[in-house]
């Protein structure tokens, strides 16, 4: 029994992504139509050419009807998936496997989330009836647990830790300012970020990802068929997923400075893709920066920085757009926004633009590397699911 991966067996041949933001004038239906048709046009296909669909949404609808009704899909299979904030990636992963299996020739993975209709701050969701003992902490609070633990472990004082977190938010806002599809398209001064009202622990409002609406989609075919659709397909090198035993809050050996699930999924993805030094082999990465300390910890978990050094690398610009390894060149969850079901596919959309040289010139990464990585996380430190993909512009 082993995991084998499907390196270079399938390819993305078209993508679509709506602008993310507060779309008071659009429902989930509208955004699905927009993203799907942009992806059809990108791949040069009609809806009738798609053999099966995978729809990711956390709470904007249930069942395949959530997609087949607005798109008027004629009696094709539509799977609806949910895997917390990694939902969009999960739709993509399953769609890829369906093609690799030979079951279908052309499929679509699409994600959507309509968050801004709830009237609440942050994320909400319904849970099954419980005994009332589950943690009532909000998402920013659970991720903020990383900050004092990381600072304590690495000997950072509160001021330095805040500076590191602020630098990460500043960087992602700077990138997002160059992205016409991003929710927040303005650079934000470090003083503004550091001085923003506190939400949880040391995290201010600017340490949190944008709550937004949006949708993104990909058309996936067998690698050998890819050139029928585009001259520049994006080959899938690795797909990994890790769902943990959720023992962080039970196990005293867990120190809240790492995501064990991320390490497991990164290791698996690097094995599938044949990567042994991600820092030097990857051109760019889109990671799950739901909150600033998350991005900090991910840099070590994904092997982009040595243990205990991510804070220094963040401060010295390693992950900037013009740094050694650009992270979240599209602005990330922080600035592009985080419509749950769409985010994983939005990350792939940036790889699609960057690795094909089609990003707007002001943020196009000039690199001779051909691999992009997406990392998508759901849950909280100590109890999460983690997805890693590696995609590349060349076979082999």
């Amino acid at each position: 029994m082993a995991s084998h991966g499907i390196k270079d067996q399938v390819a993305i041949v078209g993508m679509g992504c709506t602008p993310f933001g507060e779309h008071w004038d659009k429902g989930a239906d509208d955004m699905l139509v927009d993203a799907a048709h942009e992806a059809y046009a990108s791949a040069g296909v009609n809806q009738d050419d798609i053999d099966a669909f995978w729809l990711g949404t956390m709470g904007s609808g249930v069942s395949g009807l959530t997609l087949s009704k607005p798109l008027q899909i004629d009696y094709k299979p539509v799977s609806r998936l949910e895997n917390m904030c990694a939902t969009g990636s999960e739709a993509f992963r399953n769609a890829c496997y369906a093609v690799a299996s030979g079951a279908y020739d052309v499929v679509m993975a699409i994600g959507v989330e309509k968050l801004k209709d709830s009237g609440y701050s942050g994320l909400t969701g319904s849970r099954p009836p419980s005994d009332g003992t589950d943690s009532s902490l909000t998402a920013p609070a659970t991720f903020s647990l990383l900050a004092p633990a990381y600072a304590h472990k690495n000997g950072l004082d509160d001021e330095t830790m805040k500076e590191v977190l602020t630098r990460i938010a500043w960087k992602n806002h700077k990138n997002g300012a160059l992205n016409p599809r991003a929710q927040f398209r303005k650079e934000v001064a470090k003083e503004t970020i550091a001085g923003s009202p506190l939400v949880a622990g040391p995290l201010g409002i600017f340490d949190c990802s944008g709550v937004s609406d949006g949708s993104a989609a990909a058309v996936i075919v067998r690698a050998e068929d890819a050139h029928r659709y585009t001259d520049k397909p994006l080959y899938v090198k690795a797909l990994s997923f890790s769902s943990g035993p959720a023992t962080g809050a039970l196990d005293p050996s867990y120190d809240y400075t790492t995501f064990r699930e991320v390490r497991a999924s990164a290791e698996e993805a690097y094995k599938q893709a044949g990567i042994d030094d991600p820092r030097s082999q990857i051109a760019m990465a889109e990671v799950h920066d739901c909150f600033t300390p998350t991005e900090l910890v991910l840099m070590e978990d994904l092997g982009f920085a040595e243990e205990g050094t991510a804070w220094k690398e963040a401060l010295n610009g390693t992950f900037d757009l013009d740094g050694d390894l650009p992270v979240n060149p599209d602005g990330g969850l922080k600035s592009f926004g985080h419509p749950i079901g769409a985010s994983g596919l939005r990350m792939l959309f940036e790889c699609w633009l960057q690795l094909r040289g089609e990003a707007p010139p002001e943020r196009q990464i000039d690199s001779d590397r051909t691999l992009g990585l997406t990392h998508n996380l759901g849950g909280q430190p100590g109890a999460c699911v983690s997805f890693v993909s590696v995609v590349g512009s060349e076979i082999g």
Partner: protein
Amino acid sequence: MVRGIIGYGTYVPYYRLDRAKITAAMGAGGGRGHRAVAGYDEDTTTMGVEAARNALRGSTVTPSSIWFATANPAYLDKTNATAIQAALDLPQETWAVDAGGSARSAEAAITGARGTPGISMAVISDLRTGNPTSNDESGGGDAATALLFGDDEDAPVIAHAIGRAAATGEFLDRYRLPGENASRIWEERFGEQAYLTLAEDAIERAMKEADLALEDVDKVVIAGLHARAVRSLSKIAGDKLVDDLTGRIGNPGAAQLPLLVASALDNAAPGETILCVHLADGANASVLRTTDAIADYTPFSSVESQIENGSDNLDYNLYLTWRGFLDREPPRRPDPDRPGAPPTFRSEDWKYAFVGSRDRSSGAIHLPPMRVSMDGGAVDDMERVRMADTPATIATFTVDYLAFSLSPPTVAVVIDFDGGGRFQAEMTDVDPDDVKIGDRVEMTFRRLFTAQGIHNYFWKARPLAE
């Protein structure tokens, strides 16, 4: 065989309201000194649990009955003593009942526990509210006391009654319709004359049964919500009067009599006699005599130490908010879901008794309990492990400014228990600015919130008492 008190525990909540803050805010009411204030996450049931835990910690006995009394029950129709029984992890055979509604019901719990064969525990708890600027608001207090009764064959009796008598009077002194958050009180001078007559009768008969004259008793405890009558009656005690603590914590209603008895026992020597008088819709007098065993008895936490360790910087606006007299703008977040009855029933050991599971082979402790071990994967090879009385250390923490709370922000801590086991808990009775990694904490039974008429009881962490 002698039957009497074999142990006791008290609970005075952490917060104190400086009465001058009432005067400052309202231009009326208030006064000098402080009153004890139950936290926003406490009610008479949770305070009762804390007092009962203090009575049982350091004791080897297991009560077979619980008599719970309060004038301010958390639930009507539903028994509140059952939550206390569950939180103490007492067996199903335990008989747990409520006596409630009035300050006088304290006498029912005490008399019931004393008269029920076996080890019986009276738990009396009260949480006093009154209209802003009223005497009840400033003069009330919140507290609980548990008294353990048994025979000297079960455990050493530290004090027992050698005389007691009761007198009953039907008259309007104080009264409150169900659901109201303030009592109504008739003109004080009217109640005073009624009480003094009843007290004289009860005291005379109790002293006669004890075969003592008033001047022979060593201490006198006088409790009751009618301040004027209590003050008048106190003249009979002279310098034998036990401080009624009203200046420092206020008058905790039903819980005042047992709390003052506990306070007297905290400082009692063998062979002392204590006349205890309760003025509540009549008068109840009993004469207690301490035994030699009291010399060897040390309460888990004395009344004095609890009063000393409180925080007196509670703001009046928070007090009003906690008691429901002041509504704050809620966070832009959904209200919490009510706990479901079946899931709560299934997890009684966890939710109420804070019992986790320990893997018999690896020793790993699971909080909440798990069937499959996180260490080695053994299935259904667990033993129950109660962690309610185990201290812990903070591994990391945060302050959640967005989460639903009656008193934001919510402080959350990840704690590692001495001897193993980790849990992510809410923290209470703490200033968010004072929390740090490495701090020591202990568990306390609290009411997280109330949703759709269901009180969500569970355990929180609080700073470990020194």
